[in-house]
């Protein structure tokens, strides 16, 4: 098969071929147009002539299946696909600009910029994983950014779709992918764990902040297999000013066992959005690699490197939600806050990988100029954070599952909704106040949150005490003696 149909001026299934904009090892990219459409489009055409890499064909087949099934801002829109029966192609939206690969010569970049970039990629990955797809080739040249800022993931030729046949499963004796970025479990043939993408993103974060690839550039299987037992040098060994929170994040992504990494890309994005709340463990202080005894134990204790039984991708993601509980720290809310703690405790007890964000809204006044300090000179913001931690302490959560946030806003409901949207919160738990004068005057915060949130909302009320019947009219009530 040779790509005879694709040439400038030709029309394939209504797409008019423009010029060839890129010739890669696996595929060519042509600019194409569609009648009455201004959207810049690219036609990706696999190279399938004699002697070409069979990965080009299988990779194209995976893209042909996966791309039309993806949607949202974090992937290029797909406009059509053609089969091998005539002319294989996929037509997709052309994302303006360059891939992240162009930044390689500037490495290392600042910690703050790396945090922002990797946070956007983690958000894009979270979206991809919810669409049942594991990318499996996260690296700078697979990542672009829209003018509006969102990361866009491209190249799905090595991807795994949880609800479609995995055409790469028996195709190649060796794991296929980009060696420096490949997760260790991939070397054991595991293709259904979304945390493999988090490892690759950890490699990227390490590389972008240190200028050094954590596992080198070895392309040999022997060289790649070392990462199954040998951990990388902690970034602090390479750069003395490396922030401990960032080392914590990087080394957690690069854990050899997937179960020790972040459970989901959403949770990684959450940590990157709140660096001041990253729970520092021994990881953050490490200045050298694991001792040889540990490395040898990993290497020769096969139990540690056995693939684990698979879990359904959707079920796995659903078991690691970000739960936000909105608390009122005002006087007199004790009963409600206790009820909120019981509800939050039940949710967290069934989901050991869920994390809890405790929110409190510090209401800003519309008229007066707000003072950070109260009458006694205490910092209100810090007081609230102390209260939130105090509320959460009976839950006995591991510190890396708990964060506290004081939001300053005039409209509490809007602040909670915005926090939930920005941080990809999966479930909001909020209390409904009873008989409150404020509620009567201002409307219910919980009602607005429950109505407008994009995620599930649980509205909690304190346990029902003795009923307070409306006695006025009939004069009859359960407690009334007659």
């Amino acid at each position, binding site marked *: 098969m040779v790509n005879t149909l694709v040439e400038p001026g030709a029309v394939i299934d209504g797409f008019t071929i423009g010029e060839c904009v890129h010739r890669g090892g696996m595929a060519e990219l042509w600019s194409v147009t569609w009648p009455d459409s201004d959207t810049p489009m690219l036609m990706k055409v696999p190279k399938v002539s004699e002697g070409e890499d069979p990965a080009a064909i299988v990779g194209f*087949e995976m893209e042909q*299946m996966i791309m039309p099934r993806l949607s949202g801002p974090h992937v290029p829109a797909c406009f059509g696909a053609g089969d091998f029966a005539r002319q294989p192609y996929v037509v997709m939206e052309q994302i303006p600009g360059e891939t992240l690969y162009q930044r390689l010569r500037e490495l290392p970049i600042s910690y703050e910029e790396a945090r922002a970039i990797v946070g956007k990629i983690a958000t894009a990955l979270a979206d991809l994983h919810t669409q049942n797809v594991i990318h499996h080739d996260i690296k700078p040249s697979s990542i672009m950014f829209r003018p509006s800022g969102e990361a866009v993931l491209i190249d799905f030729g090595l991807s795994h779709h949880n609800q479609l046949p995995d*055409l790469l499963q028996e195709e190649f004796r060796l794991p296929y992918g980009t060696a420096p970025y490949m997760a260790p479990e991939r070397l054991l043939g595991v293709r259904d764990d979304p945390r493999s993408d988090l490892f690759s993103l950890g490699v990227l974060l390490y590389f972008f902040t240190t200028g050094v690839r954590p596992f080198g550039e070895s392309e040999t299987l022997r060289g790649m297999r070392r990462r199954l037992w040998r951990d990388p040098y902690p970034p602090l060994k390479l750069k003395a000013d490396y922030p401990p929170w960032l080392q914590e994040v990087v080394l957690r992504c690069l854990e050899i066992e997937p179960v020790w990494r972040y459970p989901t890309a959403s949770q990684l994005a959450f940590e990157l959005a709140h660096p001041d709340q990253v729970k520092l463990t021994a990881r953050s202080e490490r200045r050298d690699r694991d001792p040889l005894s540990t490395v040898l134990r990993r290497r020769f204790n096969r139990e540690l490197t056995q693939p684990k039984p698979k879990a359904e991708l959707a079920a796995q993601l659903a078991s690691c939600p970000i739960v936000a509980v909105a608390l009122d720290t005002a006087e007199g809310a004790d009963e409600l806050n206790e009820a909120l703690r019981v509800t939050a405790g039940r949710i967290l007890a069934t989901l050991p990988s869920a994390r809890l964000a405790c929110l409190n809204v510090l209401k800003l006044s519309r008229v007066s100029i707000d003072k950070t300090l109260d009458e006694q000179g205490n910092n209100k913001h810090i007081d609230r954070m102390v209260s939130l931690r105090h509320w959460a302490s009976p839950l006995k959560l591991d510190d890396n599952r708990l964060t506290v946030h004081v939001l300053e806003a005039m409209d509490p409901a809007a602040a909670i909704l915005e926090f939930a949207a920005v941080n990809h919160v999966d479930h909001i738990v909020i209390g409904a106040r009873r008989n409150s004068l404020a509620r009567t005057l201002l409307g219910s915060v919980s009602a607005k949150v429950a109505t407008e949130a994009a995620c599930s909302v649980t509205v909690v009320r304190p346990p029902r005490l003795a009923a307070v019947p409306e006695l006025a009219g009939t004069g009859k009530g359960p407690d009334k003696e007659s």
Partner: protein
Amino acid sequence: MVDAEEIVLLAIFTDIHANRQAFSACLDFARARGAQRMIFLGDYVGYGADPEWTVETVMDLVNDGAVAVRGNHDNAISTPSESMNAEAQAAIEWTRGRLSAAQRRFLSELPMTLQEDDRLYVHSEASSPGRWRYVQSTADAARSIVASDAQITLCGHIHLPSLYSMSAAAKMTSFVPAPGVPVPLLGGRRWLAVLGSVGQPRDRNPAAAFAMLDTETREITYCRVPYDVDAAAQRIRDNGLPLWLADRLMVGR
């Protein structure tokens, strides 16, 4: 009737096994989703307690343009030598007495395979349809795929849904489709779709199984349909058939 040129949506049923409740539920489900043509891959009888109604229904549909091939249980009605386990044998003996001469003739005259466009319909697998071999591995699937020139082979027999493909380089893939999720059967490779059973599912999911194939988009959707399992099981007990045949419907094995 729909014009042959316009038929794009096929509903494919296999291993109905005289389970009236399951078959009715699947037919309703398929019709509600616009199925234009019914394909039957055999084993209309055996195990279940409603063989007359089941065969009658299939005969009517075939008169209306559906196509049907023969399964090993259908074959055993006229060929008592067919080797089967004791429960299956007991059900066949009972079934034989229930069917009319016309129904028995219909079953015995069904073809072993049928080819339609680039699709092959067969009960067990294509390499040797009369040997009733199960497709349990990619090797079994490969043997069936290379035995015909069809791009898509549809079969049943094992009562466990799966979907195999063979690339141009003869590499195999296997996959268990998620219910209700369309899977594109890419033109660059050849496919063997093994369907789950309508009347006696064995993948620990008691819901009836069948599939729909869109011949235009070339997408296959494996469907699961809940049905009145209690009624089907009660019919088996009421007719004195082996009790295990009723119990296994409850758990889907």
